């Protein structure tokens, strides 16, 4: 498989589908968007893809809680198939609302065998849109490079990582952490997330859920200090999509 095929799941209220599809294509993947209702009608479609992406947005309005309704639809109607998908060496990327869906569907947990976690309302009680500095401390996740710093924007109301049982929490699953860096205003951990977690992986390292939006930094013009910089190296968001594509090379 030289060029991986990505299935991007749409749903009512999902609103980052176009730019996420664009990011996958820039990274060298083929990407089809599909409405969740079509997938539920024909779940076998999933098997034709190497990567599943759940993009950002407000699926079903984030009514009741963020990602809850879409998570229920997926977990109850094709939960086992999704777990098989990961077992068969495929990749899953959940961004923002997609991360919330993965967590609430039980596809990402905070430790083994099954330590429940959630993404609660931000500590300040409201939506925050802000560029954040992040670091990756784990070697496990195929989307990320250990030791690398990533600069990406967050935009959500419910991204405060919380775990049911702090003792059972496995720190090595924390794929991305908020860290001090640019911009200089505001706190490093802008939402009060437990253990500064901004992204989470699973034991296989082939599933990544993250609150920041990598698809919003795939071109230098998207960088907030682009007007001050002479040269911006590979955009951090694009690096994440490219790393996933590399897995299939």
């Amino acid at each position, binding site marked *: 498989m030289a060029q991986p095929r990505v299935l991007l799941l*749409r749903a*009512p*209220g999902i*609103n*980052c589908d*176009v*730019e996420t599809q*664009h*990011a996958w294509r820039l990274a060298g993947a083929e990407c089809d968007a599909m*409405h969740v*209702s*079509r997938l539920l009608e024909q779940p076998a479609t999933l098997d034709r893809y190497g990567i599943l992406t759940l993009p*950002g*947005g*407000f699926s*079903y*309005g*984030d*009514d*009741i809680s963020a990602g*809850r*309704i879409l998570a*229920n639809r997926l977990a*109850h109607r094709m939960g086992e198939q999704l777990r098989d998908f990961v077992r068969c060496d495929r990749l899953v990327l959940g961004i923002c609302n997609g991360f919330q869906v993965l967590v*609430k569907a039980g596809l990402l947990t905070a430790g083994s065998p099954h330590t*429940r*976690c*959630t993404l*609660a*309302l*931000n*500590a*300040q*009680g*409201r*939506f*925050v*849109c*802000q560029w954040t500095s992040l670091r990756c401390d784990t070697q496990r996740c195929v989307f990320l490079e250990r030791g690398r710093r990533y600069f990406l924007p967050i*935009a959500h109301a419910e991204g405060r990582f*919380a*775990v*049911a049982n702090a003792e059972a929490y496995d720190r090595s699953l924390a794929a991305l952490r908020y860290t001090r860096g*640019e*911009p*200089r*205003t505001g706190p490093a951990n802008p939402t009060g997330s437990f253990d500064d977690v901004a992204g989470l992986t699973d034991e296989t390292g082939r599933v990544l859920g993250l609150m920041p*939006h990598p*698809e*919003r930094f*795939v*071109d*230098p*013009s*998207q960088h*907030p*200090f*682009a*007007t*001050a910089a002479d040269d911006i190296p590979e955009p951090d968001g694009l690096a994440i999509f490219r790393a996933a594509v590399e897995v299939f090379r």
Partner: protein
Amino acid sequence: MWDSESIWEIAVEATSASHDARGAGLLATAHRAGFSEVTGIRATRLYLLRGQLDRAAAERLSADLFADPVIEQWSCHQGADWPESAEPVVEVHLLPGVMDPVAISAAGAARELLQSAALGGTGVQVRTAWRYAVIGLTELDRLETLARRILANPSIEKISICGLGRRDELPQRFPEAPQVSNQVRHVRLTGLGDEELTRLSREKHLFLSVEELRAVERHFATLERDPTDLELETIAQTWSEHCVHKTLKSAVVYRGQGFGVDGIDADVERHYDNLLADTIAKATRELALPWCLSVFKDNAGIVDFDERHGVAFKVETHNHPSAIEPYGGAATGAGGCIRDILGCGLGAKPIANTDVFCVADPDFDDDRLPPGVLRPRRILRGIVEGVRDYGNRMGIPTVAGALYFDDRYLANPLVYCGCVGVISKDRIHKEPRRGDKIVLVGGRTGRDGIGGATFSSAELTDTHADEFAHAVQIGNAIEEKKVLDALLRARDHATGCLYTAITDCGAGGLSSAVGEMAHELGAVVDLDKVPLKYAGLRYNEIWLSEAQERMVLAVVPERLAELVAVFVAEEVEASVIGEFTGDGVLRVRYAGGEVGSLDVGFLHKGLPKRRRIATWNALRRSSPTVNERIADVQAMLLERLSSLNCCSREAVFRQYDHEVQGGSAVKPAAGVGEGPSDAAVVRPLLDSRRGVAIGAGVCPNLSDDDPYWMAVLAIDEAIRNVICVGANPDRIAILDNFCWPGCEDEEQLGALVRACQACHDAAVTYRVPFISGKDSLNNQFSLSADDARRLGLPETIAIPGTLLISSLGLVEDVRRCVTSDLKQPGARVWYVSADVRRGGPESAAAMHRTVARIIRSGQATACHDVSDGGLAVCLAEMCIGGARGATVSLDGFATGADARLRLFDESRSAYVFTTPPDVDGNALGGGREIVELGVVTRDKRLCIGVGAKTLVDVEVPRLDAAWRRTNYLD
């Protein structure tokens, strides 16, 4: 009535206070509002369910759907009653008929969950409510006030209290709409005197003048019958100020001071046949710019973007609904403007939202609030959250805006919502054809928002909240997002666009949407075919309902099946409700009978034209106040930075997703220190470097003196905004949005004429065409004489004449954009200005092009508009954004000792920009004087001096703290 037997109540609350952010937020709000004795507020979410449910089903839903197992706990029981509680408890339920989006999604999810678990679930209905335990209050009247001010808005919500000696009956959980008679009613106009007509107009909320009602009477006399209620209401909507702008289109004779620099000394008399056409639209006509693709005829103006695309821009106001229910009013304002873009041409794709709010001081004394008026802080917070929730959910970045404070907006806050869209050039033309089906898509129709268009024509009073509660609505952004998704798929269908015309359902509902589309052809509509939220609506309610999130399409019968399939796939209802006929009559039928039959010629051309007199007496106006001597420049700078009209807007824009869609190039915050940006730049097409710059100019503070110069300077500011970031000065289009206190008075109309004339004069001189506009001309509030005396307020609180100019500039390559933050130390700082009031717009027109040329040449490294707070604040903001310092001397100003006045002068059109050390700004001026101010420094200090004297020497972190300190939102 409700049957408690079949109701299940599921209560969900946080397991620990640290996860009850809602309760904590309300507590903070309560403390700020003076309820210092409250020590805690605990919020509980209630879901009330009715339908096929047993305990197993209710528990399953509680555990798997409604509660988060990590941070929440739940309880459920049959029937709904007050909980056992030591503290007083307040429950807040939506009033019957108010949109409850969570309930709609929750019901769908509950049915699906129960069906997949074989636990029944057929026909489950959901309602939501909030329960608050309030800790620390001991007096009932304090609790009641707290509930009204903080916990609920009685215009859309019902408050029930249990505790402190009160025990209300809980509201009917699933209210049934009362059945109403659908017999056709006629309204008799013949034989009524002027007074009776006035009363009829007011009581039926028609807001038609006697003269207009006489025209209706004459028309129906020729038909030898009385109009039906539906016909009369349709005419009232179609002829409302909101829909036809009859004041701006009236014939006006203006008498008073002349216009412009040369007009000051002599009075003139000027005749306008149609004020709008002879001023604002005339400027666009005279300029005749080929890149204006569609102006003043569609829902939005469209200008050229690239070879294949145009860009559409529209700005609307939603003032009156926001005064009563700020959250819902602003949200539906944003939603309505987005629909304007969706309904522009054959549908533009929204790429950015803008918002401008004018409100009173958030700390306005509570005890002096007029009856029926909400606290300004609550209004501002509500409108910010409304715009936030609608825009964020729609996935449209809210990128630019303004916030302006003046106590005259106390009872009439202004909420401007704008939307920019991108459209394929071959999708601009639309026209319904004879025989096309009328298809209604989107949300269902209910009793919501009836009379919104006429409501906007009313002067607000203390009873408006009750009288017009039905005009207040809550939006459902996800419904509109689904409509957007489906619409773009139908527009770009592989076999070509699936419809021939489209318009949004806004003010006036179907009456206005279908009426507009059928204005030449005529149409027949069957109201029975309109999907309803609940039974029991009268035919005229269906026709006039302003239920949100609906669009009307014209579809060729052969494409109908394909179109419906596209909408169904996106989970959007699409219903054929009639067809375009070609007989020039708008026929409305219900239950087999005709309930209205209106000649479209009369409906759209029968409005009698008004002739008005406008006057302006310059002598009665105060002249602009000249800055008094400034003793301590540094103290004044710090005070200005933290003043309401200068301080950071971060509390607002941080809540908006300004990055979604991935096109954001220049953001609301500039630089590593996150200073203010002058304008936003957005790249609408992900594979292109082309962008649009979006800015806004608004300066109502200048209106009292002379609306002419207010308008010129608003246009000038809107232009400067987009020039600063790198827009092409030959490709800037602007929009006008007037909010006026009233226009019945000749002087108020005179003020409007002056502003309109200024729009013409400045647009022509600057060569910036108007492409769209809108007005809201009734923004004053009446108090009773007693209340006015008691509260120390005037009997009429009139807003200052407020003109928002929104600008849209083309940016050929976003990589060439410039931001306001200071960058490399050693860079030279330059200042260029024009005195527009003395020299007229012509004195600034060349300057804008000079600055644009410098930016385009790549020699400007930072650029910032000098506006509120003057040069001193401008420099401070540039330091904050760059986290750099600057050493500045005022010696370059010829004014010598008065140079310090320049520091806070807001009356000039001016820019500050920086260049690399080796660039001489003066050589770039093309003959215009450019003053060298100083140099950018690495140490974070702003030093301003004149001669040997130091006026300012302050650390940038101190400026930063002053600028961010002011809390106007929480």
